């Protein structure tokens, strides 16, 4: 792909708190569909996006059991995005900030996510066509 790009996304928000994480994953989805090489540096609360211990739950207000509710688990979104990138000839290198993981106990992550540090973010940014930081806002 002649116009294949490498993009880095730095995320900061945890899942289930606001729409920024939803939007970030939608942008990554677009890049994955284009077959781009994608780097993700998950910083602070965003390390929970790929947390492997997430579990679905039923919802009494909706009157649905756990299967019917099919609750969003962001770990599944992360895995789906990785598969989408591969399907289109790209890849996602997802790095969880190790210190952020440790202080939160968010050690278990889905397959394909690796532990790293801000040094990885620097390498990612330096080797990318561009970097988008989606930071936490008050």
């Amino acid at each position, binding site marked *: 792909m002649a116009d294949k790009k490498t993009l880095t996304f730095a995320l900061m928000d945890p*899942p289930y708190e606001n*729409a920024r994480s939803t939007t970030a994953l939608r942008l990554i*989805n677009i890049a994955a569909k284009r077959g781009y090489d994608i780097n993700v540096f998950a910083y602070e609360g965003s390390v929970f996006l790929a947390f492997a211990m997430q579990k679905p739950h039923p919802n009494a207000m909706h009157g649905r059991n756990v299967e019917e509710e099919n609750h*969003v688990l962001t770990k599944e979104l992360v895995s789906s995005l990785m598969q*989408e990138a591969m*399907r289109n000839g790209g890849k996602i290198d997802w790095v969880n900030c190790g210190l952020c993981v440790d202080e939160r106990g968010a050690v278990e992550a889905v397959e394909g996510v690796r532990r790293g540090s801000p040094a990885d973010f620097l390498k990612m940014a330096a080797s990318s066509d561009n970097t988008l930081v989606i930071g936490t806002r008050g």
Partner: protein
Amino acid sequence: MKALNIIETGYRATLEEQDDPGVWLAYTLKAAGADVDVLLRGNAVNYAVKDQDAGGLQYGAWRQTQPPRLAENIASLTSKGMAVFIVSEDLQERGLGGVPLIESLTPVTRNGIARLLGNYDQVWHW
């Protein structure tokens, strides 16, 4: 104890949660026997709009099958016997004055909020 659950922050992670946690909490507390009503204000007044559709979210092969249906959720509160108040000026400011809303809402003006709060032992503002 009678409590008023004020919901102001609209659409906070509702796509991921598939509902609003403030609405869900009110429903759940009511189901457990609590005496709770709800006041929608700020951007959360949009929850009362009938014609909203959050369907279609997709990441790769993953598709959301149960998008949030916030108007239905609000309606479920009133069907459970909760009063749901909505701030009229907040609707007007957002151009929602003539938009079809779910039924059974109780409009309240900003000037009327203080009087409304006086009817409750506790006020929970989310």
